[in-house]
């Protein structure tokens, strides 16, 4: 079994490729924000702390040796960043959004981004529910082969090799089934995502 599915991207980041780090951010931002959201009550602080966590991870990545999975490592950084932010808040309860970091010049922009990325507006809660509904409906509509392949990968966390064994087919077939499953779901999702994409990727 793969030790870390992120190893290829981590290698890229270590070679100075920030694009690879951006890809990791897109991959983990939702999980990291949910984690922080469970620790910090002030929802306005969640994106800030998540950002700070990713920045710290980026700075520390040369020291990341791959002894644990990247996500485990990132998770620990996020927990520590959130704890530190909570302690600072306790010390200075009046300061909220900008209590976090040593960034002066960014405050204006990040304040705007906070408003944009606030997770608690009725609209975005609605959008999230719709997205979840579309994904679940699309999964139901998949053929058995495709559904089994993507479930074994995403929910059971099996490697392609293991899935090939379970499904008794070549690894190339596993790769293509998972891809086709993702594309089938993404196709239903795209009109909705595109319509809401105020910010372009």
């Amino acid at each position, binding site marked *: 079994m793969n030790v870390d599915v992120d190893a290829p991207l981590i290698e*890229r980041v270590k070679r*100075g490729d920030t694009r690879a780090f951006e890809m990791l951010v897109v991959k983990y931002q939702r999980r990291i924000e949910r984690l922080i959201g469970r620790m910090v009550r002030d929802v306005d602080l969640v994106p800030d702390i998540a950002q700070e966590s990713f920045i710290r991870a980026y700075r520390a990545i040369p020291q990341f040796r791959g002894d644990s999975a990247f996500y485990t490592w990132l998770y620990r950084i996020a927990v520590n960043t959130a704890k530190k932010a909570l302690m600072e808040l306790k010390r200075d309860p009046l300061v909220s959004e900008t209590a976090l970091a040593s960034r002066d010049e960014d405050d204006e922009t990040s304040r705007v981004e906070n408003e944009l990325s606030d997770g608690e507006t009725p609209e975005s809660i609605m959008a999230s529910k719709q997205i979840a509904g579309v994904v679940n409906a699309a999964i139901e509509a998949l053929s058995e082969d495709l559904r089994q392949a993507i479930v074994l990968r995403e929910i059971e966390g099996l490697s392609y090799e293991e899935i090939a064994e379970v499904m008794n087919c070549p690894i190339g077939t596993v790769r293509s089934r998972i891809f086709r499953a993702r594309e089938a779901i993404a196709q239903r999702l795209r009109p909705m995502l595109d319509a809401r994409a*105020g910010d*372009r990727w």
Partner: protein
Amino acid sequence: MLDESEDGARSLLGLSALADGELDPAATRQACSRWHGDAAARASWHAYHLIGDVLRSDDLASDTARDAGFLNALRVRLAAEPVVLAPQCVEAGAGDMEAVSDRRAARGSRWSWLGPAAVAAGFMAVASVLVVTRGNAPLEGASDSLARSSAGGSAVLTAALPVPGAASESAANAPDEPQTLVADGKLVRDARLERYFAAHSQFGGSSALGVPSGFLRAATTQAPGR
């Protein structure tokens, strides 16, 4: 047209495999370039992971505007960070320096070649002093390897010189370039330097002087020992 869409599908297949950590390094590099330049690839990368997250838990569903806003805000902060470079990875793939120089060029740093150039010149001086003062029998091996290394040093210099202007071009369409640089890299960094780096976990100072400064120090501390 058909070729184009086939190519697009193949690259998305690669992104899908990369999302699962099942892509080889060369293809990963291509996928990263694609992520940088292709909005459809970026949207697909987001969609694939969003799908995975929602499969695991409905409360991870999130809309694109929110996620893209998060990344855009982070980009502003990342741009202010020094570029990450872990030494062993630079050695393994010297060609990937192009990604760094890409960023440096983007920031308009026109003098980034000065660091390596200065260090290479300094190293040449050290090498020639050693050759002149202690150039005979007992040092044959050392001066030999130093001469080889200094040839490598100037190779690095020439490789570094054209970087600011040509960076984006080479990132886009020169898959062959890394091989030459890797060959140069081997000349510059022999096994003893690697052991030295491993022993000292050398990170080599600032990003501008990163690799070459470590290389210079290693050369000066090791050569007399031979």
